[in-house]
């Protein structure tokens, strides 16, 4: 046993897979200890906030201000004029402003604005432009004027007695706030999702739940598969025929279909995480049954098994002590694969809307489901689904690597 373990941990593939898997597992355990927030708390009032640190506007306005002699104009120009606007400006300038295309450099915002200010005129003759396009350019011009004017912001408070606004402070464009001074801030490393939940916290929680789904599904499938395989292989005869008939049936009838039928029938309200996991397990045992059965058939006439039979040992004891130990490696390998396919099955079910009921839990599949339902890809909210896909792939990758590593240890012919 010790020797086998040492061998297993000498396989680089197994070790890499194991390290990735352990890292994911540890993250799901340690992260909640550090970040105590409820993973399903709807923090953001609105959907898909970008990743980053959010600081309270009021706090920053009221806090200590520092004047820094930094050119802030090009920075704010850059952030306020989109790439699309720049393209449109270029188009207008070349078509109607009489500027040569070579003179325009989209990277140089200030230069572009300079050209724009010098050449744009709302009343210019603009043949071929629709009225709405003309208005768009007028708006853009006004916008740019506003940014260029760079007037100070005036803060005012309402006087509770008179109801009048009283000026309380002015803010110039070179005033800065040290983010450490702002008491109310929150960092969303992966932004928020469609419900305004912190994606990172939710992702960690979902990973934990999905791992649990995989584990339960794997355990159920392994128990059923092992049990049927042992009986079928050891008893043989009619029992074997019957079990193999059923196994072959369920190998060909796609488990995906059975999953859909059962999950739909159970109903939205009854579908908890554990139930979904058990259903997945109950539809994915055929692989284990097949490999266990063929192993048992090759084992059952070995000398040591016959010796046990002659010694009058019970069937239970023979199976447990003389056959099972030889199967351990196969069963473990099948178990590892079933964890990974269980996680995938949950994700696919959830994508169809047949996953665990949503309000109380987060799973990787449910996160994907919501992200696609709210068209996260189309509005550029990569943070809502990309980390989820990567997490699913990493889990499957690590488990498959472990499986391949084990395979090479136990089947020396596969070693390269």
């Amino acid at each position, binding site marked *: 046993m010790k020797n086998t373990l040492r061998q297993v941990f000498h396989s680089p593939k197994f070790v890499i897979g194991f390290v990735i898997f352990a890292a994911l597992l540890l993250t799901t355990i340690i992260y909640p200890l550090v970040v105590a927030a409820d993973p399903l708390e709807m923090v953001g009032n609105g959907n898909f906030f970008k990743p980053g640190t959010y600081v309270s506007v009021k706090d920053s306005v009221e806090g200590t201000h520092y004047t820094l002699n930094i050119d802030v104009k090009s920075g704010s120009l850059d952030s306020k004029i989109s790439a699309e606007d720049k393209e449109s400006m270029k188009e207008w300038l070349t078509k109607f402003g009489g500027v040569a295309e070579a003179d325009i450099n989209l990277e140089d915002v200030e230069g572009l604005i300079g050209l724009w200010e010098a050449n744009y005129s709302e009343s210019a003759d603009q043949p071929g432009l629709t009225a709405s396009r003309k208005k768009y350019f007028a708006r853009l011009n006004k916008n740019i004027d506003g940014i260029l004017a760079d007037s100070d912001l005036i803060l005012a408070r309402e006087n509770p007695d008179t109801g009048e606004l009283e000026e309380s402070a002015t803010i110039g464009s070179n005033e800065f706030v040290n983010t450490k001074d702002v008491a109310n801030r929150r960092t969303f490393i992966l932004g928020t999702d469609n419900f305004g939940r912190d994606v990172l916290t939710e992702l960690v929680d979902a990973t934990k739940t999905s791992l649990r789904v995989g584990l339960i599904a794997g355990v159920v499938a392994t128990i059923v598969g092992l049990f049927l395989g042992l009986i079928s292989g050891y008893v043989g005869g009619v029992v074997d025929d019957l079990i193999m008939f059923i196994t072959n049936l369920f190998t060909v009838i796609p488990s995906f279909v059975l999953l859909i039928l059962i999950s739909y029938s159970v109903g939205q*309200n009854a579908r908890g995480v554990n139930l979904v996991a058990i259903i997945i397990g109950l539809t994915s045992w055929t692989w284990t049954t097949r490999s266990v059965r063929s192993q048992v058939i090759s084992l059952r006439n070995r000398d040591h098994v016959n010796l046990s039979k002659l010694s009058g040992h019970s069937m239970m004891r023979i199976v447990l002590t003389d056959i099972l130990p030889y199967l351990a490696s196969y069963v473990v390998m099948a178990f590892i694969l079933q964890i990974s396919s269980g996680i995938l099955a949950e994700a696919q079910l959830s994508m169809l809307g047949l996953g665990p009921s949503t309000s109380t839990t987060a799973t990787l599949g449910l996160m994907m489901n919501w992200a696609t339902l709210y068209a996260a890809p189309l509005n550029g909210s990569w943070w809502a689904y990309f980390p989820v896909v990567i997490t699913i792939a990493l889990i*499957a990758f690590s488990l498959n690597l472990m499986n391949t590593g084990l395979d090479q240890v136990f089947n020396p012919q596969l070693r390269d």
Partner: protein
Amino acid sequence: MSKGNGVRHLKGFKKYYGQKILWYLITLFFAIVLNFVLPRLMPGDPVAGIAAGAVSGMTDTTAIQKVYNDYAEKFGVNEPMIVQFGIWAKNALRGDFGVSFGQYPRTVADIIASSIGWTLALQLPAIIVGWILGNLLGAVAAYIKGAFDKVILPVFLFVSNFPAFGMAIILLTVFGINLKWFPTSGGYGFDLIPNMSWEFVRSVISHYQLPFWSIVLITIGGQAIGMRSMSIYELNADYVKYSRFLGIKDSKIVGYVFRNAMLPQITGLAMSLGTMMGGALVAEIIFSYPGIGSTLMAAVRGQDYPLISACTLIITVMVLLANLFVELIYGVIDPRVKAAQQD
């Protein structure tokens, strides 16, 4: 080969095919039974609650009455289970699945008919292309070894672990939204009406690319890994060493090796077809591709039980047919099966 041998050979084939087809017919029967029984065994039986549940979203009273009557007649709700099954199976075999709850007054058969073509045209070529490319790459990686193998194997190992919908959403983001090379959703431009014009065909082809390649990429990864390890296994076999010893040309040995390594890959394809098709169906959702996958999701959202039932049945039939086809081909290719037929 003598004449008598040839006749026996043909007989063996007939027997092999006959057995396979019979077995698949039995499987189909059980699949149909499961399709009928599973929902009715569950606590939340969608069929029993149908009168209340299915029509709750509809406001038009004549429509409700129509759906309910249609349903009661089609499913024989008040009859005993076995009679219900008889009615249901008879209708199902004729392709009559009743009226959709979600898309009333369209019939389920009509909805299925309009989406199955898209799914077949997408999945069949994608899985075949992915399988062929994957096997080629796997075999080449096993034969060449060295840097090619070192680089390509981990890449495919990683890629093959992406769920199909994950690959789909990544391709969608990169090529559809960021690079804008391909359209992001639907089977053809939303402003077009299906016809045989050049414009429509071009639209269909450009919409086809992303779903197609996401399935192909996933398939390549898995197949390449399997083929690589099978080829390594075969390259170390005794007959290879013996052939080398006899001085048989390397190219000929490689031919033997890959033919032998290919056989388990074909069985593997048969075993994993169901899973692959399931994954590909979910990937359709990402692109709102108008196939069975998207239809199924719409049916689930709309609590459209007849449509779900028909979808699962049609998916089962597709998987069974594909499996049968693979097994029949296997019978032709594998010399051992041929030998067994001649006993």
